[in-house]
C-alpha cells in the first residue's frame, strides 16, 4: 500500500453517487413512496418433536431469545411412541413466520414443522368457574354452547367448553353475566384436514398404518417459496 502525509484519500460522502433504492426493515426492496408498516398475521404452526427432556425449554428459549411473538403453545403425545406434537400460535410478519418455522426446524429434537392453513381442524378448551347463584341459567348457557358441567357446588359451577377461538370467546362473553371467578384455558391444538399429514412427511405409528395407504405432501407446510421444502433440517 502507498503511504502519504494526509491519511485516507477520496471523494467525501456527500460527493459520492448513491442509488435511490430502499429496503424495508425486513430487507425487502420497496418503493420508498409507498412504504407501509409490515403487517402481521396469526399463524398456526405444528411441530413434531422427539419427546426428550428439555425439548420445551429449547422451543420456548428459541422464541424468547429471537423475540418471536407467541400467543399459545400446547404439547402432547402423538401416535408414535417417543414423539410429541407442539402446536403454536404466533403473531408475526410474513418473514417472521418464515423465521419461526425455519428456526424451529433447526432444533435437533424437532423432526418436522408445518404451518396449518384455514382448512385445518383446530380446537381449544376452557374451564370456567362461575358464581353458582343461578344454576338453571348457567346450565342453559352451557347447553347453548355445547359445554359440559364438570362441577356444581353450592357457591360455584365449573363448566368446560371446547371449540374454536371465536366460539369460546363468545361463550365467555355469555357467561360474564354470572360473574366469572376463574378461567383456565389452553391454546388451540390442531390437525390438518383429511389425508394430509399435519407436519410434512409425518407418519402414524407402525400399528396405525396397517391397511392405511401412506400419505405424503398435501396442503400443509408445502410452501409457496421454493426454499421451504428444504427447510426442515438442522444445520
Amino acid at each position: 500500500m502507498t503511504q502519504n502525509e494526509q491519511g485516507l484519500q477520496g471523494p467525501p460522502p456527500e460527493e459520492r453517487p448513491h442509488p435511490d433504492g430502499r429496503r424495508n426493515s425486513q430487507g425487502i426492496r420497496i418503493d420508498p413512496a409507498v412504504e407501509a408498516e409490515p403487517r402481521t398475521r396469526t399463524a398456526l404452526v405444528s411441530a413434531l418433536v422427539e419427546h426428550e427432556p428439555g425439548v420445551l425449554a429449547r422451543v420456548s428459549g428459541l422464541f424468547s431469545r429471537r423475540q418471536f411473538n407467541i400467543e399459545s403453545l400446547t404439547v402432547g403425545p402423538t401416535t408414535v411412541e417417543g414423539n410429541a406434537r407442539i402446536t403454536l400460535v404466533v403473531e408475526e410478519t410474513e418473514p417472521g413466520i418464515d423465521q419461526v418455522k425455519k428456526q424451529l426446524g433447526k432444533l435437533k429434537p424437532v423432526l418436522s414443522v408445518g404451518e396449518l392453513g384455514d382448512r385445518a381442524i383446530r380446537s381449544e378448551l376452557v374451564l370456567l368457574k362461575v358464581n353458582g347463584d343461578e344454576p338453571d341459567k348457567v346450565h342453559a348457557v352451557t347447553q347453548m354452547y355445547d359445554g359440559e358441567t364438570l362441577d356444581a357446588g353450592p357457591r360455584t359451577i365449573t363448566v368446560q367448553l371446547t371449540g374454536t377461538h371465536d366460539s369460546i370467546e363468545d361463550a365467555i362473553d355469555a357467561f360474564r353475566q354470572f360473574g366469572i371467578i376463574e378461567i383456565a384455558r389452553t391454546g388451540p391444538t390442531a390437525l390438518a384436514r383429511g389425508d394430509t399429514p399435519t407436519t410434512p412427511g409425518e407418519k402414524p405409528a407402525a400399528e396405525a398404518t396397517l391397511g392405511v395407504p401412506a400419505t405424503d405432501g398435501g396442503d400443509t407446510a408445502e410452501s409457496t417459496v421454493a426454499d421451504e421444502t428444504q427447510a426442515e433440517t438442522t444445520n
Partner: protein
Amino acid sequence: MKESASQTTADHSHDEPSAADPAETTPEADEERTKPAGPTPVTDGSTSVVRALENAGVQHAFGVQGGAIMPIYDALWDSDIEHITMAHEQGASHAADAYGVVAGTPGVALATSGPGATNLVTGIADANMDSDALLSLTGQVPSHMVGSDAFQETDTTGVTMPITKHNYFANSADTIGDTVGEAFALAESGRPGPTLVDLPKDVSFEETDVEPGEPTVPQNAEPPTTADAASIMAAARAIERAEKPLLLFGGGVIKANACETARAFARDLEIPVVTTMPGIGSFPEDDELCLSWAGMHGTGYANMAITHTDCLIGVGTRFDDRLTGGIDTFAPEAEVVHIDIDPAEISKNIHADYPCIGDAELVLNQLTAEIDHAPDAREWREQCQTWKTEYPMDYPVDEDAPLRPEFIVEAFDEATDDNTIVTTGVGQHQMWAAQYWTYTEPRTWVSSHGLGTMGYGLPAAIGARFAADDDQDVVCFDGDGSFLMTLQELSVAVREDLDITVAILNNEYVGMVRQWQDAFFDGRHMASEYNWMPEFDKMAQAFGAQGWRVDNYDEVAPAVEEALAYDGPSVIDFHIDPEANVYPMVASGAPNGQFALSEEQL
C-alpha cells in the same frame, strides 16, 4: 506423563478398520464389537468417551482439570490424544475454536463442572456466532445430586442451550460414547457450530464394555447438499443478465472448503469479489477482481461496489449488521442471490430474491453448469478498478511521530510467507490486521467476528499453532487491553515451546472505545485510558518467553525479524500512536456507500 502413555499406544491407528467400525458391525459381529479396538479396552463411561474421540480422529484437546471431569482425564492418560492444559478454560475454548478453524475439524475443549463450565461459555458463544465447529466436554456432579445445588453444580446444558447448536446430558455409560460421537459429528455437519456434552461423574465411572461407533450425524439433521433445479435456473438467469454483478464470499465458503470452486467461479465469469470479515482468505486479496472486505471498517471500494451492484451473489454469509450497515440502504439496487446451507439464513436479514440452499461448493458447481454465458460487466469491472484507485488504503508516515500500527502490520506481512496464520484480539488492532495484511489463503485469518471477544488472540494463536503445519508462522496481533484479558496463556506457550509471535499494538487505550468516545461522546475518555499496563516485554520474559519493546520506526524491522526467527513464544510490545484511528468507517446503521474517511466525515 505422555511419554509412557504414547509408548503403549503408539501403534493404534485411527484409520485402520477395526472391529469397532460400525459400518462393519453386523449382529453376528456383536461379540467382536465389545472387544477393545485400541490399546485399552472400554471399561466404563470415561474410557468410552475417550474411545469416541479417538474414533473421531481427535488428536488434540484443550482443557483444565477438575473434580467432576477427573475420570475423563484419567482415561486420557492411556490415549494418544494430546491434551494441552490451558491456564483458564476460556483459553481452552478459544484455543479449541481456533484449532478447528485452522484444521478444518472440530476442536475439543474440556472443563470440569460449575466454574470450569462457565469459564468455557465465552468461547462457546464465540464459536456459535462464527459457526465454528467446537466440541465441549464438561464434567457434572453425579446424577443423583443434579438439581440439589451440589458443590460446583451449574446447569451447564441450561446455560449453554442458547449458544450451542445442540447440547447433551449423558445419562448412561452404554450410550455416552455414541453421544460424544454424535456431538462431534453434529458440530461439523451442515452449518458448523458448537456442541457440548455434559458428563455426570457417576456416568463416567459407570461400568460398560460397549464400544462406541464412528461419529454419526443424528438422523434428521442431515443438511441439504444441492439446491433444487428451479432455484438454480432462476439464479443463473439473474446472474447472466446482471450488468453490475458482485460476489460476496462469507466464512461459509471457507468452512465448506469451497474456495477453489468459488475462485474459479469468479474468474470464469469475471465477477468482482467482495468478502465479509470471516470470508477473508476465501479469495486472494492481491487478485485484480478482489475488492477486499466490505462493512463497517471495510475498504471504500468494497463498500462502493456493494452499494451499487445490481446483482449481489452472497455465498455462505449471514448478512450481519456490521456488514450491511443500515438495512434500508444495503445494496438497494441489487437482486440478491443467496447461497447458504442454513435455510434459516435465507431472507433473515436481507431478502433473497434467488435463494439457493445447499453446500457452497455443490451449489456453485450447479450454477456453473446452468449458466450459459458470463454477464456483460466490462464497464462495471472498470468502475470497480476506478474505486480502487479513488479510495486507496493508506496512512501517513512521519519518521519522527509515533509509530503507525498499519506500518507494523505491513512489516510482518512482508517478513512472512503467504501461508502465515494471523490471529487477533478485538478492537482497532484487529481492524488494522484485517485491512493492511494481504490475505491470499483460507484459514489464515483467525479472529473473533460475531461475538467480538477481547482476549481471543493469544489462546487462538496457541490453538492455531497445534493445527498449523510446521512451516507456517503464527502471528497474533493483539491490543493492550485484549492481551491483558488472557495473557496467562503465555505460560502454556512457554511450557509447550510454541513458535508463536505476539505483536501488541499498544496504544495505552482500549482504542476502539477511545475512538468512539472521540467521535460520539465528546472525547470523554471514561474508563478507556490504559496507561496502567505492565511492561509487556519484561512480563513476557518473566513468563519465559522472549520480549521486545519497540517505540521507533527503525526498530521495527529488526524486532520483527528477531521475533520471527526466535524458536519459541515471543512478544513485541509496539508502542504506537495512541491517536491512531481506524478508517474507513461506516457508522452503525449508516449506508455503506457513505463511509467516512476521517472523523470529520462521520
